[in-house]
């Protein structure tokens, strides 16, 4: 048995979050998500949490495990015999128990125009419409692996201090599209990325990349975008557009 402390928040019951402990049986393959489902089914049906694929690809089950942002389906109780505290993802408003309000995250994702813009069709045959060499793909592929789990936002102290900061995932996504050879939308994205809320709020703490379950390295993307934003300022300066 493992002792799991869970940070609860039931707004209709009390205005403040509270902690509750559960004794959970486990074996070598029991994940935190398994444990949460066990608690909900056998101990306390009021416990609320998000999950879906249970195999670390949907990005739904983000949670803080002993203060570290993780996917609950990918954390195993066998590694936490000393005890475990589960809290909702940091830096986001708590809706209920381990469920957070992802609106800020979703708003920032949308704001960077994360889609191909004016990508010229190379053929009327839809199967051949967009072509790309392996080298062109390699330029942005790592940044396209994001599963929108939000762990990087919980890791990022700059987002924690200022939720207006676009944040690691959104800026990485913008950079992913800027680097895509099919895309013509960089000019449409840069005005937002050139603001204080773009990469300029980042101080390269780098913890976002540490917690990313997909090894996207958002810190690299955000800081590469600083270079692009600086180049953009220089270019506009020379053109007299500043």
């Amino acid at each position: 048995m493992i002792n799991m402390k869970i940070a609860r928040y039931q707004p209709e019951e009390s205005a403040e979050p509270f902690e509750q402990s559960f004794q959970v049986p486990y074996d070598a393959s029991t994940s935190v998500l398994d444990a949460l489902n066990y608690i909900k089914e056998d101990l306390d049906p009021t416990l609320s949490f998000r999950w879906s694929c249970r195999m670390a690809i949907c990005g739904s089950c983000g949670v803080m495990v002993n203060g570290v942002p993780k996917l609950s389906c990918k954390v195993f109780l066998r590694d936490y015999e000393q005890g475990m505290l589960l809290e909702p993802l940091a830096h986001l408003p708590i809706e209920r128990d381990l469920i957070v309000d992802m609106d800020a995250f979703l708003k920032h994702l949308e704001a960077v125009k994360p889609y191909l813009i004016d990508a010229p069709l190379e053929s009327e045959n839809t199967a051949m419409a967009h072509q790309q060499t392996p080298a062109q793909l390699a330029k942005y592929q790592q940044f396209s692996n994001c599963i929108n789990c939000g762990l990087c936002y919980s890791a990022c102290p700059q987002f924690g201090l200022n939720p207006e900061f676009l944040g690691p995932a959104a800026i990485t996504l913008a950079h992913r599209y800027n680097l895509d050879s099919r895309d013509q939308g960089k000019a449409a994205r840069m005005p937002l990325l050139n603001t204080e809320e773009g990469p300029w709020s980042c101080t390269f703490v780098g913890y976002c990349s540490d917690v990313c379950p997909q090894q996207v390295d958002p810190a690299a993307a955000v800081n590469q975008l600083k270079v692009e934003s600086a180049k953009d300022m220089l270019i506009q300066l020379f053109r007299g557009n500043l």
Partner: protein
Amino acid sequence: MTQKAKLKRSGEPIWWALFSAGGVCFAVFIPATIVFLALLMPLGVVELSYSQASTWFFSFWGLLFTGAVVVLPLFHAVHRIRHGLHDLKVQHHGLVKALGYGFASVLSIVCLTFWLLGFLN
């Protein structure tokens, strides 16, 4: 689109560029500078007489030295202190910026002025 009118370009690239250049100098030039000028020389392991130092410093090399070892690292330091204070939730962002970069600019100009005066002599 009205969205564009609301988006204000940040002036941060300028300070970040100085910070980056200063960071390179901090990493590459400062260790040697400390070892020789701040440790070995005061401890008497190496000697730098006044005539050697002034001949060497009040030349073109002194300008490079001032730029790479004093001015750029100064802007690097001030930029990091400014962001560090922000991280510690100090809210006077404008004041910190003005004091920080202001001090770095003034001290840089002062050092460059002394170099120039010595160089012209």
